[in-house]
Every structure is written in C-alpha cells, then in structure tokens.
C-alpha cells in the first residue's frame, strides 16, 4: 500500500481539447456525392427535365448513348434510358432503404430482448429466426407476390422480413457480450429498470454495429431487389427498376450491351458507395479506440 497522499485529483489526465483528427479519403467523398446525386434525382425525378420513363419513341429503338434527345440512349421500346435509370433508382433506393428498416427494427428489438433476458424468450427468438433462415427465400417471395400481387410495398415487405434473422443475430450477439459487462450490473445496482438498461445503456452500444450492418444490408438489398426484378418477381412493368432493366437488356446484349451495362453499373456504384460509407462511418464513430 502506498502512503502517498496527493491532495484531490493528482491523477489528472490532460484534457484533450484537440479533437481527434478525422481524415476521410476521396473515395468516401465520392461515395457520398454519388449517393446524394442518386438520392436527389430519385426524389425529384418527376420535376427533372427528362422524358417520361414509359413514353415510347419507336424511331429511337435501341438508340446508342449520345443520341439526340436520348443522352444515354433508349431501350428496345424506345424509352429514354436516363429517365428509366433515374426512375428505376427510385424503386431500388426505396426498397433498398425501407426493407433494412423493417429488418433492423424487428430484428434489432428481438435480438436485444433475447440477448438481455435470455431464457425461454431467447429460445423462441433464436428458434423462430432459424426457421425463417431455413425457409427458401425465393419460394417465400413467390408466395407473397402470388397472393398479394407485385408492388413496391410487397417487395419491400418480403426482403425486409427475410432480413430479420441477420439483424436478430447481430443484435443478440452484441447484447449478449455487453450484458456481461460491469456497467450493466452497475446500472442495476443503481436501481435502473430493465427498460432503462435496454434503452439507455445497451441500445447506444448496440446501435453502432447495427448501423454498420444496416448500410451493408442496404447494399445487399439493392442487389436482391435487382435479382428479384430480373427474375420477374419485382415491380411489375412498365415501372422501371435496375434489376428489370438488366433483365430486359439481356435480349439485346449483342447489339445494345449498354442497355444491361448501364443499370448494372449504376447498381454497382450505388452498392459500392453504401459499403464505403458504412465502413467509414463505423471507423469514425467508434468511441472505443483500441482497447476496452
């Protein structure tokens, strides 16, 4: 035992007034710019000076990019490609953002409750999630679209529900390890209710990994929506979506490859951008540098 007695607060840590320098690369800025560009054009698609995505200009069938009146060309029915890309982005982004919201809300709650309370609730939650995981996703998508019809809402619901298991697992795993930490015991020792511990102590800790996973899920969802549309399970024609555009362009890959490659490129860039942003945000907002 040391008998040093330094009066009040000898262990002062130096107050760091200099904020941690946050460096972001050009890749991050480019990604944000792309997301903003796609997002804004999707939101304001109706007011943009572009042709209607369903108007057919049969004289300009499969016009190559750079043609007069059609900057990015036209598809096999003479519909303006740029306009269809922007309107298709609207569908892709709506589904891509809303479906993970369903997943993160339901899955996050379920996972946190299961990880915190354990016991029978956890058994049911994990069991239910396993059943959902084991169910073939395409059959599920087919069943829903067959009974409820093809629409953006239904596609969002299908992909959202299919995303629940992953979010549940992430939330449960993080909550499990956090619940063992002393600050949770400390909160209970201070008389915090379960609700308070879940919302104030655990949620801020779980939110960060969930956010990173959410952005990853956005990227995956855009691809999944594309795949479903490509298979004809997505939004019904003539509404454009990147996936269905790739599917329609497939017939003329040899003579007009841009009809498939343009939407594929848009999808690629958007997915990449979301992944880059997700990764960077996670690295920037992590308040636990290194140890702990």
């Amino acid at each position, binding site marked *: 035992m040391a008998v040093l007695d330094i009066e009040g607060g000898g262990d002062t840590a130096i107050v760091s007034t200099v904020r941690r320098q946050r460096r972001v690369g050009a890749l991050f800025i480019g990604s944000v710019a792309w997301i903003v560009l796609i997002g804004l054009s999707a939101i304001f698609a109706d007011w943009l000076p572009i042709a209607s995505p369903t108007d057919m200009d049969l004289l300009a069938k499969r016009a190559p990019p750079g043609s007069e009146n059609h900057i990015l060309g036209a598809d096999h029915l003479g519909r303006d490609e740029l306009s269809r890309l922007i309107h298709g982005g609207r569908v892709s982004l709506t589904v891509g953002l809303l479906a993970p919201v369903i997943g993160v809300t339901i899955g996050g709650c379920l996972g946190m409750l299961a990880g915190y309370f354990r016991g029978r609730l956890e058994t049911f939650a994990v069991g239910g999630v396993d059943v959902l995981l084991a169910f073939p996703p395409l059959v599920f998508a087919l069943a829903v679209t067959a009974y409820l019809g093809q629409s953006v809402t239904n596609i969002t619901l299908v992909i959202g529900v299919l995303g629940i298991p992953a979010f549940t697992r992430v939330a449960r795993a993080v909550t499990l390890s956090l619940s063992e930490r002393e600050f949770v015991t400390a909160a209970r020792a201070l008389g*915090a209710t379960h609700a308070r511990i879940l919302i104030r102590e655990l949620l801020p800790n779980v939110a960060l990994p969930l956010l990173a996973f959410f952005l990853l899920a956005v990227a995956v969802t855009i691809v999944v929506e594309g795949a479903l549309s490509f298979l004809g399970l997505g939004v019904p024609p003539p509404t454009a979506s990147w996936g269905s555009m790739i599917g329609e362009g497939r017939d003329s890959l040899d003579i007009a490859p841009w009809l498939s490659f343009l939407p594929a490129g848009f999808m690629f860039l958007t997915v990449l951008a979301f992944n880059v942003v997700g990764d960077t945000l996670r690295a920037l907002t992590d308040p636990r540098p290194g140890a702990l």
Partner: protein
Amino acid sequence: MSAPLLSVEGVTVDLPTPRGALRAVDGVDLTLAPGSTLGIVGESGCGKTMLSRAILQLLPKRARLGGRILFGGRDLLSLAPEALRRLRGPELAVVFQDPMTSLNPVLTIGTQIIETLQAHLGMDTATATQRGVELLAAVGIPAPEQRLRQYPHQLSGGMRQRVAIAIALSCEPKLLIADEPTTALDVTVQAQILDLLAREQQRRHMAMILITHDLGVVAGRTDEVAVMYAGRVVERAPTPRLFTRMRMPYTQALLAAIPKLDSPPHTPLPAIAGRPPDQTRPLKGCSFEPRCRYADERCRDAKPPLADPERLGGLFACWHPL
C-alpha cells in the same frame, strides 16, 4: 450500539457447476451499524464478491441464496423486485473493481451522472447538471464542467473510479459497497481513492463495506474486519484488535504475504502454500486445515465454530488460535 443497518444471517450462496453445487458463501453472519465501516478480506474466490452481490441481490440468475439479509429492518430476500429496485441507488450503492468496464463506454460522464439523479431524485436537467458538477468536484475531479462532456475512454483509470464513486454517491446511499475499488488501479492512485472513500463516508455518515484482498487497505480505514476463507468468515474483530492480536493462522498468513518496504531486495515473499479447497467438495473439518501448519486430527474432523471463547471482543474459527 444502535439498531444495525444491515444484518446478514446465515447466508449461503450456491452456484451450480457441472461438478455439482459450489458453495461460494457458507453460512456468513455479519452486522453493520449505520455509519460504520466493515472490511471484508480474503483471497480470490473466497466468496467475498458473491457475498456482496448477495447483499445487493445481484447474484447470477442460477445462483441459489439462503439465509436472511435484513437491510434497515426489511428482508431483502422477500422484497418485491420493484421495491428492491427503488432501494438500489438511494439506499444501497456499489463501486466495482474495474472502472474500465463499470462505466458505459458510449455515454458521456455527464449523461451517466445526470440520468441517475433524474431517475431517482426527479431533478430537472439544470439542477441535475449543477449537482453533477458538485459531485465531480467532491470526488476531486478538476474542471468538472468539462469532464461532464467527456467519454469514459478520455479519462484515466483513477479518474474513472472517481466518476464511478461520484455516481454511487449521487443519491446519498445509506450503505456503500466498495468491491475491490482499487485493485485495478495504480498504487499511487490507490491511497487517494481509499482516502476519498473514507472522507465521503465520514462526511455523509454512510455505512461502508470495503472488500479487498489486501489487509493493508482495511488497516486504517475500517471499524471492523471480517476475514473470509472458502466461503466462511474465519475471523472477525474490531480493526485495531485484529492487527494487534490476530488469532486465526490464515489471517496471519495473509498479513505475512504483504511485501514490506524495509525488507532487502529479492527477499522471497512468504506465500501460503497449497490452494484453496474445492468448494464443490466440502471438507469435514476446518477448510484451512490442508494449508495450515498448526493443523492436527481435531482440525480434520470437526469444523471450528466462529466464536469468542475468551470474551475479548474478537470472533475467530480455529481450534488452535495463535
């Protein structure tokens, strides 16, 4: 002596393990008067933390608790969960061993203190913030207004433990349990934290249980010391008495295991030979018998009771007191 604030009667804690029930706490009796301090000393795994968790009713879910714990006349074991929750904070508070993990890493210090005050004392944000600044100042944190906006990782270990103490003290508890509050800290900071605890305990006339494995820690700062071994209290006496006239060989061995400042370099530290007994297989006799140099037949066959045969004010459980 006034009516005890806390009285622990025959408390047992059993933890289920694959090899059978592990008796972590084995029939402990303790009383604590309001405003007094009790030190609980013992080596790792002797049940001191489990005992403190039993008092706080924060045992692991699978643990089984027996006996009676009376706090301010109320039986904690039969208290409804909601009543128990209300007790924690304003009446019972705790400081944990590791300040690295006992604060929430993603919330600012201020949020953690202010929310406690708001939840228990119903203060508005401005009053609670003001009170938070006072509390941080009281535990010796310079520039408290700035600290309120910082995150735990921006503070040193000693600082964090001060914050944890400030949070524990925020609702003016009647009993503070400090569970190895200095074990994770630098030696130079240890004395400061212990003095801080002693000062606040005196000032607020709060009872305190100081749990440690270091007899040196309890020496000048407690009214009474209980030495625990293998889940039982083996010696309990007023602090000055314990140090002038210890009766239990285990207590002596613990004291001998503290390094002395004046011993020459490279002096081997007298460690206690052997290991604590397997608590899933209780011994028939004294649990310290396998490691005790005074042990004989009687120690093997019968468990010595915790008693005061000489009526000198100190309890001990030994057939062959020193």
